[in-house]
């Protein structure tokens, strides 16, 4: 297994420096890509050029450091953790570091996407090298000042020391450092010497959040801006036949009503007027494709599970032979509904399209792609598009899709005004892009007390798992192993939702293992450990490691006192590898007057080096409760193309009274860090289902569980 150690590198091309006119050093850099030869960082801090650089480090004459971090912040903590990595290698006290949001999109930015829990994993090396390079430049400047060899000097906590014990603060040498060449080679710290990484650092936006400062897209305002609400087709499959905006225009504050595509925009001088104006628009819709309903989806997905038109994703050994020779066959089907993302901040975006530029501002996980899409749609050069990212009130995958930003640009392109498109909660929940409904059928063959064959079929809507997922556990642990997928094309728009595919697949498989353990009369934890013993360990971030998986399983079981609880506590276990991170969870339930009550979830995580423990625990706590909440309550369906829920009065999200305490344990590691935004979620539903089985005797195969639990209560009461 590869661990981080003192390494040298040569990447001078990805860093450029300048001396600021106000004094101090400015370092511009690009993650993983070289800067253009011609690119030079500005000399005025107000003129940061994010077209050529995707981040900057400013070191002022007082030694204080400002990191302009452009990575989108959706609540996963990268705005704090990425600067921590730079500061670690730069070796400055974290108290001397402040973080500012870089305001822009750039054509050079390789990973300006927050999604897939990849920000830290992909940025790790580049961020460390950047910090180390900056440190070396300061050391070189100090050495030059003293007339000594740089190798005889050391730097720590913002102070450079030479062999005689003389010291210079970083601030005292920044102006000289700005005139020096960028060092060819620098070395990185050994993880055991980390002072910032591995220590709790609170969210850098904390004070602004808790005092209500403008941070989010919805908070953004511009001079003369119109507030816009949009009438969209109420059902999937519908097109606009005609509309009448007369009554809407009579609403106080409404300034204009315009059609764009199959939608109608109501522009107003305030949000309330735009909302009232929207209600007053009279529309006539026509179906141009077949309206769908959830019963149809059920039927179509079931047909796929029966083996029609499937793609083989992986096929080891001979599953058919194993099944033919089996003593016992286990065959289960697991079902999950559509889910909306329900970010707390509803979708919104600002756009101002003028003759010389296209100005866009808002919460978006994919700024570069969205800017390109808009440029193409309204026929503008990408160089004229200026996109500023705001903090995001949640993402969960929804803000990967720039449909709301495109709407704003289209409307401003028509009226020429600065506009802010605002979704109501009803718009947000019904306008589309959902976690697609899916079903999994899993069959296993057992002979001589061993699992000999395993066959998984995925039936989903509009897409399927990517191939790497077919290689997740128990691939390699069972000799005859097959994964097939099929999908039904629906006119309901679907997309990524926190931990795509695995958010439900993990529940299905982890529930199935529990049943296998029952059939084999084995402890469910031991069953997994025994299967993992058959798998040689591998050091490939896209695949699970049998050692790391076994270690999290063992740690979670130990911390939760697996199997050793009192008579009224029921436990359920799950372990899953996703987004390059291994996680094991034990859910504990107590029965209270015959009702299951969630008490605690014990989590063991191997995400490599933990950059910011408080932030990391926050992600796991949130991911686990999100997984439990949606497995328990999340339900979304369609009748005649019409979404059946539109707000939180009928659509249930997890609330405080529903929550267990989450206790997180990290495996100590010196391996490069991996993602945390998603991997806590997938195992939660399975661990919950297994605990509910232990507590109630009821095996839950269909989400949300609340429906079956209510039925159980009705049956018991009767």
């Amino acid at each position, binding site marked *: 297994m590869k661990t981080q150690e003192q390494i040298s590198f040569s990447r001078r091309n990805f860093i450029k420096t300048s001396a600021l006119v106000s004094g101090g050093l400015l370092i511009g850099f690009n993650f993983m890509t070289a800067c253009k030869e011609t690119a030079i960082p500005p000399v005025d801090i107000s003129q940061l050029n994010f077209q050529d650089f995707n981040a900057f480090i400013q070191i002022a004459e007082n030694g204080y450091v400002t990191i302009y971090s452009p990575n989108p912040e959706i*609540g996963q903590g990268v705005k704090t953790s990425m600067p921590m990595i730079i500061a670690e290698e730069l070796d400055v006290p974290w108290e001397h570091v402040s973080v500012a949001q870089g305001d822009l999109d750039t054509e050079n930015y390789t990973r300006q996407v927050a999604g897939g829990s990849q920000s830290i994993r992909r940025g790790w090396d580049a961020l460390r090298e950047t910090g180390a390079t900056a440190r070396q430049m300061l050391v070189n400047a100090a050495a030059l000042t003293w007339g000594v060899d740089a190798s005889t000097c050391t730097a720590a906590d913002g102070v450079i020391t030479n062999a005689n014990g003389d010291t210079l603060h970083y601030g005292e040498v920044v102006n000289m450092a700005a005139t020096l060449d960028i060092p060819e080679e620098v070395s990185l710290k050994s993880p055991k010497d980390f002072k910032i990484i591995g220590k709790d650092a609170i*969210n850098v936006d904390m004070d602004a959040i*808790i005092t*209500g400062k403008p941070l989010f897209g919805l908070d953004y305002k511009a001079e003369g801006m119109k507030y816009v609400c949009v009438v969209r087709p109420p059902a999937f499959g519908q097109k606009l036949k005609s509309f009448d905006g007369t009554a809407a225009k009579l609403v*106080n504050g409404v300034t204009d009503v315009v059609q764009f595509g199959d939608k109608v925009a109501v522009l107003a001088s305030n949000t309330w007027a735009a909302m009232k104006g929207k209600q007053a628009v009279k529309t006539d819709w026509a179906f141009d494709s077949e309206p769908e309903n959830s019963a149809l989806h059920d039927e179509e997905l079931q047909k796929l599970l029966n083996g029609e038109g499937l793609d083989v994703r992986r096929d080891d050994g001979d599953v058919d032979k194993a099944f033919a020779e089996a003593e016992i066959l286990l065959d289960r089907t697991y079902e999950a509904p559509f889910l909306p993302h329900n970010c707390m*901040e509803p979708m919104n975006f600002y756009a101002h399209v003028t003759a010389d530029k296209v100005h866009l501002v808002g919460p978006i996980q994919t700024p570069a792609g969205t800017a390109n899409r808009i440029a193409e749609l309204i026929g503008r050069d990408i160089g004229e598009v200026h996109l500023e990212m705001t903090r995001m009130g949640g993402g969960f995958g929804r803000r990967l899709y720039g449909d709301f930003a495109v709407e704003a640009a289209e409307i401003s392109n028509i009226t020429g005004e600065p506009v802010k498109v605002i979704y109501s909660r009803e718009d947000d929940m019904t306008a589309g892009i959902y976690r697609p409904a899916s079903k999994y059928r899993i069959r296993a063959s057992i002979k001589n007390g061993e699992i000999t064959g395993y066959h998984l079929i995925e039936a989903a809507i509009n897409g399927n798992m990517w191939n790497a997922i077919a290689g997740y556990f128990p691939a390699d642990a069972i000799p005859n192993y097959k994964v097939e997928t099929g999908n039904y094309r629906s006119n309901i728009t679907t997309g990524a939702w926190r931990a795509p595919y695995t958010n439900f697949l993990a529940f299905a498989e982890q529930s199935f293992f529990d049943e296998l353990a029952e059939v084999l009369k084995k402890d469910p934890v031991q069953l997994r450990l025994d299967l993992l013993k058959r798998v040689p360990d591998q050091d490939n971030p896209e695949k699970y490691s049998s050692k790391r998986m076994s270690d999290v399983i063992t740690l979670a079981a130990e911390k939760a006192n697996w199997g050793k609880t009192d008579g009224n506590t029921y436990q359920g276990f799950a372990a899953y590898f996703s987004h390059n991170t291994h996680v094991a969870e034990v859910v504990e339930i107590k029965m209270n007057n015959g009702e299951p009550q969630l008490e605690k979830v014990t989590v063991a995580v191997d995400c490599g080096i933990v950059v910011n423990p408080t*932030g990391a625990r926050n992600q796991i706590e949130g991911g686990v*409760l999100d997984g439990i909440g949606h497995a328990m309550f999340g339900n979304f369906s369609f009748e005649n193309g019409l979404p059946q829920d539109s707000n939180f009065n009928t659509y249930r999200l997890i609330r405080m009274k529903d929550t267990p305490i989450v206790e997180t344990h990290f495996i100590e590691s010196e391996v490069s860090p991996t993602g945390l935004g998603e991997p806590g979620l997938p195992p939660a539903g399975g661990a919950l289902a297994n605990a509910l089985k232990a507590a109630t005797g009821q095996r839950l195969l269909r989400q949300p569980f609340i429906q079956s639990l209510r039925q159980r209560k009705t049956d018991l009461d009767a």
Partner: protein
Amino acid sequence: MAVFNLKVNGKNVSVDVDADTPLLWVLRDELHLVGTKFGCGIAQCGACTVHLNGVAMRSCVTPVSTAESMEITTIEGLAQEELTPVQEAWKELDVPQCGYCQAGQIMTATSFLQQNPQPSAEQIRNAMNGNLCRCASYNRIEKAVALAAEKMS
């Protein structure tokens, strides 16, 4: 349209809006106090929570006309020179993830602790149950309310 005289965070202000305009949009669009958030518009999520005469209310369903004679406090008006014990507790426990719902959570917690300075664990869970957090930072919110109570005693 009509003129409404409001007292927001100790200051007298007047706004010219329709009488049915929810206080939320008056605060956000007219007074530029955007710390109070829009989440659902039907009093189900708590993101828009403000204090009217010290009591936590949902500003998204409170017409401006009914708030006229009341002391309105928003998240921006909570801290004077220093953070309040509730804000301090939120900071100490690093509560927020995306942060969007937290102003509403803090307003609910502040009003609750004024009425019940030494709450039980169950009372905290009941009091905070009306505020949604999609990031599910509930464990920390729960601990922060308890910590704030400790700080205030």
